[in-house]
């Protein structure tokens, strides 16, 4: 039986206050798959290496401004390191990283992009996997995970929160929609999963989640758990 690799998912601001990491965690995702204002920086990736863990830059779907910023971070990181794994959530980020950095960037398909691709046939997903040399497909859907694994594609499973929706109108920066400079996301954006309504849905930053995701029958290659949930 293959043991799953355990990953912790952290926002950049959480990393700076990090005290301890569970021993079983070998990989750390830093960034956000939902908000482009919470991008990882090179110092965050370096810090994870200093902690003795493997860093993965988690990127959400990116508009041009933030895509350029992300590329600059990866370029800076690759000046000192041979390779990096990046979790991407839109086709533009995927193709740009592939074209710019080739095999030095290992691509993991983030759960948002995976959710989109999963609506295509499995042949499409397999083709894209071959074309871009995808390391992992991230998902929080049991059925999707099973289908991907049956097709010999490697799965990283998000647990226990299941993606529900993402807004592009931030709750917390409503008065400063376009000015990240005026709104300190790292200080004011909540890190906790806040139960809403009757507790069916959780809000974290600009994304909604439901709980719990159901683990697939087959063991995925990687399990991604928010740091606070360990």
């Amino acid at each position, binding site marked *: 039986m293959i043991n799953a690799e355990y990953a912790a998912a952290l926002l950049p601001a959480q990393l700076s206050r990090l005290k301890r990491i569970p021993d079983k965690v070998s990989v750390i995702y830093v960034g956000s798959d939902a908000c482009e204002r919470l991008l990882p920086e090179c110092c965050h990736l370096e810090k994870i290496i200093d902690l003795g863990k493997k860093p993965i830059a988690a990127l959400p*779907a*990116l*508009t*041009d*401004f933030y*895509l350029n910023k992300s590329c600059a971070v990866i370029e800076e990181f690759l000046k000192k390191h041979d390779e990096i794994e990046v979790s991407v959530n*839109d*086709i*533009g*980020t995927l*193709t*740009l990283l592939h074209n710019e950095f080739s095999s030095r960037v290992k691509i993991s398909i983030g759960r*948002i992009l995976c*959710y*989109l691709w999963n*609506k*295509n*046939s499995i042949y*499409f997903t397999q*083709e894209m996997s071959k074309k871009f040399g995808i390391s992992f497909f991230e998902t929080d859907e049991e059925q999707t995970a099973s289908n991907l694994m049956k097709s010999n594609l490697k799965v990283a499973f998000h647990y226990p929160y299941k*993606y*529900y*929706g*993402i*807004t*592009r*109108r931030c*709750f917390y920066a*409503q008065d400063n*929609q*376009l000015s990240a400079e005026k709104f300190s996301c790292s200080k004011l954006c909540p890190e906790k999963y*806040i*139960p*809403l*309504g009757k507790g*069916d*849905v959780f*809000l974290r930053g600009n994304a*909604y989640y*439901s709980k719990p995701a159901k683990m697939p029958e087959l063991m995925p290659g990687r399990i991604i758990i928010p740091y606070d949930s360990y």
Partner: protein
Amino acid sequence: MKIKAGICSFDEAEWFISNGANELYFGLSDLPSHVDNLGENLRIGNRHDFEDSIKFAHSHGCGLFVAVNDINVNVFGIDKALKKMQLLTECGIDGFIVASPEFILRYPKNARNPEWHLSCLAMCLNRSALSFYRSLGVKRFAVYQSLFPEEAISMFKDSGMESEVFLQADEICVNYDGLCQGCGGLFGNKKFCQLPFSMPGSSRKFHCIRPGLRADAHSFYVFAHNADWLKLVRKSDFSHRKQVFNFAKELLALVRESKDEEAFLSMSKQIFLDIRRLHD
């Protein structure tokens, strides 16, 4: 800026063409389309009627496009959908609005080539994504609905593709459209994003905010100067869409007449208010 209107019947097509629409689009019940569940797909009587309608549209210089933009091709079966699309192309349909690149990649190479338009549901947020789709042969992209004009502006310059935007005042999804599970589901028929929430320990109500009238007007002004097409949705009744179509024409006329954005904002306020009232 030209206008592309969504239709649900050929009677509607005649009205929109007679009133100046430059292009029309619709869904068909046997092709995967985003608004299937709303019952707004076009019902075609027979192939003869269909071909006559295409001839009528073309004789008025109006293009006809079919939305195949539900990304869940697994449910419909892509092979079946592709056969139907090929048949429609042979009948004279100008092209398809797709969200999934798989349709383009697997469309028979020896068949008559349709024009491919990218649905906003493809979640195209940056120039790199546009390059990818352009390389597949996509001619036009729809700007992702919830992008602010300032975020989208970089995509218009030298993209090598035509662009279209929705009239955001009439239709905007504040969530990632096509990726939100909030409509229906846990919250029944209510739109999840329109429900207010309180945080634990706080009486403050949170909810997704809609852009205000001024933001609607600003978006329209910027997009009218940068995008090629204004797209009007088909998710409402015909009388609503007729009114929105007329408002859209008035707004475009105001953009042409206004000496600057401030003048447009001032002159267009009542129209945006009227559009909003259509939803009340």
